């Protein structure tokens, strides 16, 4: 159920972003690009959620008991949290996709900053933010 709602949300954001990119106003285009990049980031995060499978981090010499997951470090026993005993099935997330999303967010921050400055300069040069009026280049 949650996955369905997440997918629909991503699709909606993507659709709104695409709609905004097709507008005539430069600022709307930039907002549309940001929305699409957020939709893509959510898509990447959603690929890293697993439920009811074996967690990837498994302790070799497991000492704990109870719920199966240790959330506190026990350095004297050589345990670094979170560690899962072999055979435990628990929901977990793939940490790699979060690293990917972090990279993608930083990149989209840089591009958005650049493109906003570009939009400001275009407004200074052309006196308009309407892309239909940006037609000085032609063959």
């Amino acid at each position, binding site marked *: 159920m949650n996955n369905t709602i997440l997918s629909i949300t991503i699709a909606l954001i993507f659709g709104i972003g695409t709609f905004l990119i097709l507008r005539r106003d430069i600022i709307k285009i930039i907002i549309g*690009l940001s929305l699409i990049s957020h939709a*893509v980031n959510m898509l990447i995060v959603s690929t890293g959620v697993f439920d009811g499978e074996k967690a990837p981090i498994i302790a070799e010499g497991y000492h704990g008991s109870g719920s199966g997951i240790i959330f506190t470090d026990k350095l004297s026993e050589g345990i670094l949290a979170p560690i899962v005993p072999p055979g435990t099935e628990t929901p977990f997330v793939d940490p790699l996709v979060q690293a*990917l999303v972090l990279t993608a967010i930083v990149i989209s921050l840089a591009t958005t900053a650049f*493109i906003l400055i570009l939009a400001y*300069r*275009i407004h200074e040069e052309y006196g308009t933010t309407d892309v239909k009026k940006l037609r000085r280049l032609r063959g």
Partner: protein
Amino acid sequence: MNIQEHLPILLVAIPILMSALMIMLRSRPTFQKTLNIIVSASILLMSIILLLQVWNSGILVYEVGEWGKYGIILVADLLGSGMVVLSSGISLLALIYSLDYIEGKSLNTTYHSLFNLLVAGLNGTFLTGDIFNMFVFFEILLLSSCGLVVASENGGVTTISDKMEATFKYLILNMIGSMVMLIAVASLYATMGTLNMADLSVKISALSDAGTMPWHIYFIALLFLIVFGNKAAIFPLHYWLPDVHPTAPSPISAMLSGVMIKVGAYGILRVYFLVFKDALFLLKPIIILLALITIAIGAIAAVGQKDVKRLLAYSSVSQIGYVFLGIGMGTAYALAASLVYLVNHAIAKSMLFLTSGGIIHHAKTRDMHHMGGMVKSAPLMSSMFLIGAMSIAGMPPLGGFIAKFVLFDAAMLGEYYLPVLIGFAFAVFTIFYMFRAWLLMFWGEARDFEKYGPYSSHGPSPMITVPIIILAAAVLILGVYSEPLISLSSEIANQLLNPQPYINAVLGGSVR
């Protein structure tokens, strides 16, 4: 410590460090210029050493952080290191050229720094073995090239508002392309659980052999065609190129047209022939179709241009179609031919763009109808433009002839008769538009250029002429003595079609 093992990371790290250093050195322009030239030359030297090492002792794998296949790896195989040699050679010459061509204020503050970032992005793209890392280097390439397109040149033929408009188109379209690449990479990771290209190749082959390949792998492959097609400006995605390449300053046009659009071709060669080799039967006809339409559209549009750089940009669109035609045929000979074509086009087109910069300085206009009779007042530029035009058109003693010859030969051997016919017809178009441009600019009634700026009186400086002459010599040498390039390309093509050594080299190392 053996320095040769660390060459791949040095080729990426040194330009990034230099780009930070260049910002700090902005108040000492002479030292900045000298240092940047020395570093670019040493990068060229290191890339040649890397290519020789890969040629002699096989694929070199550098594990960044020593995480094995789970971390980022740099892989220098023949294709990657060969492309690095090409890009560093052209970037060194473009850098020397830009010292006199770019306006002083722009040159001292941001130009050197962004140029180093561009070199780092190119080297990283060609050397990386990790598909997400390739996305990151694509973004570095995109942002640094946007900054370079808006750099202003001496004389100010192109207005700043034109540059803004072109950069806006370039940035928006390439950002959408980046988003598509991110979607493709994420879907690939969600399906296969790895981002390492060699590992992906092994897993997809295993699934394909077992007959359980998920159907959406084909769609991911098509998404990558959009990504790399957008970079390389093939048919439905070519329309940003004729705006961006002419408005950039000439050395940057040379970099964009010579090396940047080849990044798309490199991506297709690397990703399709390594990762998606089991989906290639579906992709090859699509690539051939798009390549033929690209050839036709670029050539037809180039005929009607009056702006010299816009003509060269449309010619780039047409010529990249020939490269993709060879890739689409997919036999070893055709791949080798397309690599020969790629190298020849890169050198000839960057030389033509550099020459056009000299012509623009001389005539103070980009409109060919306002030029004429310049063969007497600018003899060097006219002869160099003629060499470049003949190479692009495929005249016998020059590199372009060898490239077209092997490409059409490969197509005939592969029995692709209709593509050969179309390619041949538009090769005739190429001769027509290149020589039309040459005749318009250099023959006919002489116009008076004395009233234009200092450049037409004292003539081009050595910093402008030497890179053009070196590139012209390279075009001539590649035409007369082309065996080394052809044998290197054949070896690369064999490696592409048989990626097992690549996979062994990447996955052979143990995780430490």
